[in-house]
């Protein structure tokens, strides 16, 4: 369970989050909607511990752990995963070496032995089939030369490899056509179990047709101003955000 209390955060001296309260229970999918610059990406970056963002007040606990005291890698080991809005290209680092380092670091943190080479490669192969990603992509450098859709699919592949318990999908739908969006969303749904919770950040209803949220929040000017059921997303699609503004 993720609990955010009175969270204030700033980036480069500018206050973006001005008191966010949010509770996400195990198994729940929350959608976070809002205008550009409302603070959606700031909130997700603060949760995963991006060093550029400074928390000035408030707390985040995850399964009883004080997240704000943990490094980004420790948060990852605790089960937090973010699908990046803009996945980073890392030329020269192969997907295999990247995933091996990630999987084994997580295992080490959990007190498990590193995977043997053959077991690791089998896991890569099985996961690649599960999320239906081209095996040629998996044999290249991380995201290098991937199309927008391939990068997002690669995020889902990494999610499948790491099996997180809490996922942030930061505008996973941006830059995707309808078919690619469906494939990525189906990949995510396939990986979910009753314990997995998620925060889905999006501007549009479209993604939420595939990943159905239990609760929808609207974030405006650094605060959550409205919380309701999935019907809220549909209403925003029709009426925009202006009617919600306090």
């Amino acid at each position, binding site marked *: 369970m993720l609990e955010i209390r009175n969270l204030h955060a700033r980036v480069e001296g500018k206050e973006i989050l001005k008191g966010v309260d949010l509770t996400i229970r195990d198994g729940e999918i929350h959608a976070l909607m809002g205008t550009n610059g409302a603070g959606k990406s700031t909130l997700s970056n603060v949760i*995963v511990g991006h060093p550029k963002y400074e928390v000035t007040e408030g707390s985040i606990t995850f399964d009883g752990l004080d997240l704000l005291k943990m490094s980004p*890698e420790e948060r990852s080991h605790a089960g937090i995963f973010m699908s990046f809005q803009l996945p980073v290209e890392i030329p020269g680092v192969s997907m295999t070496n990247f995933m091996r380092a990630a999987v084994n670091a997580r295992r080490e943190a959990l007190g498990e032995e590193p995977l043997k080479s053959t077991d690791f490669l089998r896991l890569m192969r099985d996961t690649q089939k599960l999320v239906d990603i081209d095996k040629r992509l998996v044999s290249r450098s991380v995201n290098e030369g991937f199309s927008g859709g391939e990068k997002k699919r690669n995020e889902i592949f990494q999610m499948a490899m790491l099996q997180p318990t809490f996922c942030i999908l930061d505008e996973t739908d941006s830059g995707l056509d309808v078919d690619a969006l469906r494939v990525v969303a189906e990949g995510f749904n396939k990986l979910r179990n009753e314990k997995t919770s998620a925060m889905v950040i999006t501007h549009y209803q479209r993604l939420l047709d595939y990943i159905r949220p239990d609760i929808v929040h609207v974030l405006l000017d650094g605060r959550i101003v409205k919380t309701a059921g999935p019907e809220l997303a549909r209403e925003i699609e029709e009426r925009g955000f202006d009617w919600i503004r306090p």
Partner: protein
Amino acid sequence: MNTSQTYLDLYARYRDQLMSVAPDAMNACRDEAIRTFGHKGLPTLKVEEYKYTDTERAFGGDYHLSVATAKVTASDAPVVVNNDELLTRYYGSCVDMSDPIVALNTAFASECLCIHVGRNQHVERPLEITDVLRAQADTMEHKRILIVLDECASLTILMHYTAADQQHFLTTQVVEVVAGDGAHLDLYEIEETHSLCTRFNTVAVNVGRNATVRHNGITLWGGITRNTITVSLKGEMSEVTLNGCVMADKHQHVDTNTVIRHEVPRCTSHELYKYVVDEQATGAFAGKVYVAPGAQQTQSDEVNQNICIGSESHMYTQPMLEIYADDVKCSHGSTVGKLDETALFYMRQRGIPRPKARQLLIQAFIGQVVDYIPLQPLRERLHIMVERRLGGDLDTCAGCTLCK
């Protein structure tokens, strides 16, 4: 007493011994060389070619002179010590004998390792020369190597420099290379010595017509390292590639100085050097491409990319073009940067601890230089050596015959 004078005195003391063991062709240059050195002295920081390396510091210290006389007993390898015929013909013909460090080496070298591949001969298996510094006291050695490839000969050599004892070592080495018309040479040099070692290495290559020469210098461990590489393209349609990578930390100092001389038309040269300097280490790269009057249709590209990690690390870079022909295509570029923070964070979000993420990024950066090595087993071995270097592994050197 200044440092240069100690070497002049040392020469006076050892001259007769050196003359008695070394071949005539080497002795013929000896007195002239010490005169050159006496006249010029150790180059100061005001000398353009040596402005990044303090030679007074490098050559100071009390070293025992090692006068080596070795024998090669290998059967089918094209290697002998002191091939008189080759020495008479080529000794001192490629390298700039007026350079004070080369002069010092020429004065003190007592033997020359000669590698000769005859016309149309292809040495199928790569030749590996492992140089292990061993001594019970602080020691200096002045090494000389001559590589001659006759017309259309081909050879791949790996020279691996290591040190087995924890003494101060001062090494000067001069490698002269003659690549005849149509010859093909791949020359790899790897330094894995230690922080007490000072190494001044000069590689001088004369390239004939239609020949291909690739040099790749990899500096992983050392104290003070200076690599001078000069290539003279003397025949048309030839191609030369100089690549190198350096990983330096603690108080390591690594200085590379390259000169490629396009003396004739229609040759191509490529250069790629990458440095990663960390902690208090210093890196320097100066690369000059000279295009002589009339050397038309020269093509040349030179790239030097560097990552400075430590806040106390330094990197100096100086790419240079000197062009006296008007129909040429030459480029040069140089960058000094830091590790990509966005990539680091992406990796950490996936659970990769920062030190490991750093290691993967450095490996990827340096790995590009290793990827240019066409010989697959060697390429893989070097990737492993780089990985071990980053992991701080000093114990073994990834598969040389001694560590197996």
